């Protein structure tokens, strides 16, 4: 237990902040994923073949390639890509991107591919009559989407989105390879300096279990809220 003490003698406070970092990266990645899903879901549902192809390409490639490979692409290629864009605008200095940004972008793109699939499934399972009824009532496109389709879609999507959240949360452990100090990286550092890997990795497992358990509880509440009318 001394190993987990707060302050200078133990690793308690370090691991506490590392847990916060894991939560922060997961939430950011999930939100980045939603942005990607908002772009790619309409593409996947589009009637135009080329747009359709772009949407399918994104979800197929990201879901068929290991997360670690995507993270390496971002880790090694991220600053190069940004510097290339900057050089077009006449900026030639070295740019280093924050590990937090690289990590949450990489995990966000992965999470977005799963979210896209969830949204697509949810929209497709909404009765066609709902769209038609909204149109007949003279509701504009914006209102149709936000007031009629979105609430129904969320109810259907929440159980699957909770799976996406769990995947995203667990994927953040892979960012430790880029040096961002989250649970896994902190445990690695602690294990290295105390020569007690068994304890620290097991403790990391407990922390992850706690996070998945708590988020499960929270999502169940959300699910109840959105299925009120049913």
């Amino acid at each position: 237990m001394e190993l987990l003490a707060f302050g200078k003698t133990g690793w308690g406070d370090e691991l506490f902040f590392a847990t916060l970092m894991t939560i922060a990266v997961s939430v950011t990645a999930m939100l980045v994923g939603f942005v990607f899903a908002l772009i790619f879901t309409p593409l996947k549902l589009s009637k135009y073949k080329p747009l359709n192809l772009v949407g399918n390409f994104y979800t197929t490639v990201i879901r068929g390639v290991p997360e670690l490979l995507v993270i390496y692409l971002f880790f090694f290629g991220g600053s190069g890509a940004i510097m290339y864009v900057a050089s077009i605008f006449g900026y030639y200095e070295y740019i280093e991107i924050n590990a937090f940004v690289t990590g949450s972008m990489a995990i966000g793109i992965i999470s977005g591919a799963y979210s896209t699939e969830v949204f697509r499934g949810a929209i497709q399972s909404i009765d066609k009559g709902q769209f038609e009824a909204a149109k007949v009532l003279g509701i504009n496109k914006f209102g149709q989407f936000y007031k009629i389709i979105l609430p129904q879609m969320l109810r259907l999507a929440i159980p699957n989105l909770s799976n996406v959240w769990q995947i995203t949360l667990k994927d953040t452990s892979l960012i430790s390879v880029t040096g961002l100090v989250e649970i896994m990286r902190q445990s690695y550092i602690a294990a290295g300096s105390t020569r007690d890997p068994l304890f620290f990795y097991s403790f990391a497992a407990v922390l992850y279990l706690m996070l998945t358990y708590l988020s499960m509880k929270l999502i169940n509440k959300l699910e109840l809220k959105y299925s009120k009318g049913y």
Partner: protein
Amino acid sequence: MDFELMISSFPKLLGATVITLKLLIASIFFGLFLGLFFAILRLNKNVFINKFAYGYSYVFRGTPLLVQIFIIYFGLGQIEYLRTTILWVILKEPYWCAIIAFTLNTGAYTSEILRSAFQTIKPGIIEAGKSLGISNKIIFYKIQIPIAIRQSLPAYGNEIILMMKGTSLASTVTLMDLTGVAKYIISTTFKPIEVFIVAGGIYLFMTFIIHNVIKYLEKKYSFQQ
């Protein structure tokens, strides 16, 4: 685009794919038996056995694979007693540690897939078997298992693809699998995009093959022939 690098790195990456495939096949093979074993325990009426099987799948599904592989590779070596037993021959090899971690992980997911497949079998089918005087053992092996396999094929196909992606974590414990070699080439040439295209292409090709094999099996074992 450095096409020369793409062409020259292709054979190296393809060679590393062999290790990826070995890891995948071994962990899927052992994981299927482990999953079946725990699925049967989950259906047991004894509360303790039931809870034990649930705990196993909960812990392995609730923690990242990376943690599991680190506990087994870095953690277990710390126990002095283990180092004296015959088990150490296996546990000192990163290759076997990776297989053990993958097996335990995929076993947890497989047990959930099979459990839900067993539970969706209509009780009428089992009753029909009983009333025909077939013994419980034969009902289980000849009726329940074939139906459960058919039911769980789509979900199990996804699990194999997830596991294939999971094998990339073997590179974190010094194994030179497809991702490990890809990372090595990236860090020596600093050409991440080219290497990503080749390595990602190989992974996508494997996904494509697995996807189609499962689709074929689904068709073959579907009820409407």
